[in-house]
């Protein structure tokens, strides 16, 4: 063994397929051309977003098994009509709202048997990754303080923080997801700000 070569991967997921899709969407090539790529693309999107969708669903208070099925359904729909990808502008927003609608439908179909609780939006500080930045005592301090602030807020306010801050969605997109006008989303934000300033 006198030859020695090595490869490494970066932390980031490569986005070139994604880029290809964006270019494709702009150029609107024929569906035949897109076919094989489609399957790859859907797999890529699954890899990329499945965890985001799972986390969002968990925060809304759903079980992992329910979410797994719901996510499966969304992607099944996408596989059956991949030309839909051509029309989607903001993929993350599309997937989030598809998940929400799907979960609502699941709720409706099981409502006969289960007493429906108002789902809570659980947003709280996790300390798993903070240890890389700060000491353990500081970690617990951050956790306690931020969680205390979040407790004051309503579920809707927490959800807006989650979508705005973690997923960098616009007020329009958040409005679309929460079935509210962008103006009332802003209102929710101002009320939240007033609450945490106190």
């Amino acid at each position: 063994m006198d030859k020695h070569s090595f490869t490494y991967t970066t932390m980031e997921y490569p986005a070139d397929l994604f880029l290809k899709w964006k270019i494709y969407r702009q150029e609107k090539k024929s569906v035949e051309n897109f076919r094989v790529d489609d399957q790859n693309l859907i797999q890529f999107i699954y890899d990329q977003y499945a965890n985001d969708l799972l986390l969002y669903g968990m925060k809304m208070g759903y079980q992992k098994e329910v979410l797994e099925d719901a996510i499966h359904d969304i992607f099944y729909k996408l596989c059956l009509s991949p030309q839909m990808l051509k029309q989607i502008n903001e993929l993350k927003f599309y997937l989030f709202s598809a998940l929400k609608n799907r979960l609502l439908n699941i709720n409706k179909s099981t409502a006969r048997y289960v007493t429906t609780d108002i789902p809570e939006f659980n947003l709280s500080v996790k300390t798993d990754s903070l240890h890389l930045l700060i000491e353990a005592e500081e970690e617990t301090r951050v956790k306690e303080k931020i969680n205390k602030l979040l407790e004051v807020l309503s579920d809707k306010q927490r959800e807006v923080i989650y979508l705005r801050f973690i997923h960098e969605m616009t007020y329009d997109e958040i409005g679309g997801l929460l079935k509210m006008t962008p103006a009332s989303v802003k209102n929710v934000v101002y009320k939240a700000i007033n609450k945490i300033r106190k």
Partner: protein
Amino acid sequence: MKFCQYVTYTAVDFSTDPFFLEWRWFQTEETAQFWTAFLSAHPEKSDEILLAIKIVALSFVDETISFSKQEKESAIKKLTAKVHRNKRRKRSAIYSLSTVVILVTLLFFPFRNRPHLLQTDEKTFVEIPEKEVQLIFSTGNRVTFNEDIQVAYDTTGNIVVQNESGKMLEKHKSDETAVTLNRLIVPKGKRSSLLLADGSRIWINSGTIVEFPSVFSKTDERKIIIDGEIYIEVEKDMQRPFLVATPHFEVAVLGTKFNVSAYSEDAVQHVTVAEGLVSVLSGEEKKNNFVKQNQQLRMMENNTTINNVDVYNYTSWKEGILRFESEPLKNILTRLSRYYDIHLDYESDIEEIRCSGKLFLFDDWQTVFNNITKVSPVEYSVTNNEVVLRYNSKK
């Protein structure tokens, strides 16, 4: 105005301050203006604020909830199968034949293509057939040495190269603005050490490539890339995590001492922690494993295990000693072959013989092999620049 109240704040204070959180969470104009103004009035606070921004960003990250690689793969398989069934039902008999062909390709295509997807940032590095230690600067200049060296960077990026006995061999002013990394290549049969600009110290074992910047960025993580084995003592810096990237995993730490063995040609790779705590990110999922003091994480294909070990067995090589307990002979021979740069030839019947003991690597290789034949039922002979080991049942 309000500025004075924040002057004594630490990063943790900032990250729990409602007004600061308002800025991070909602990005309102009022808060954005305030904090930019605060930063320009108190530039000495910029480090604390940058750290606080990172804390807030990471605070909602939850790595415990995620789909595993297997779960994702089986979900995709289920999905493809379901699409397959659906399409077959719809199409006519003749047409369905072609669909099957397409779908079979679809079924295999994603999995065949997978590694390609993940390795777009692939770099193929130079060969190391050389017998000399090479230092390649970010400028492309190359210096070679035919003895073990000690390389030291000071905080301004000046480089001093000495040999084992402390004789100065090379002095170099590096280009601080360079984006590309320096590369230190230590071939089989050689060892070296490296003192990085941040004060972290690295011992480099034979057959290893290390890539590192002359000066680390003031704000970002400190990152080096290796293929091979190193022992590293990381200088503590709470604001800049230290990352050791290998072909199969990454190790993230703040300030600890640990050994990484990650030869890309080895089946087993391991991280052994002598002091502190490290986090090892591996696989496509970047699954996170914490490894504590006196623990070792071993990775074989996709299986990772964490065990308590005697750390000295894995770090003693830097002192020229190889100590092992009930170790398969195969592993010991691989290490010796690298250490002395000799080619070994042996049958698989001796691979699993377990040995315990201590070898002094500063002895010449004949002495070391004589010692091995004393403690285990093998004998050796030299033919055509190769050392041939054979099972000897008489012992």
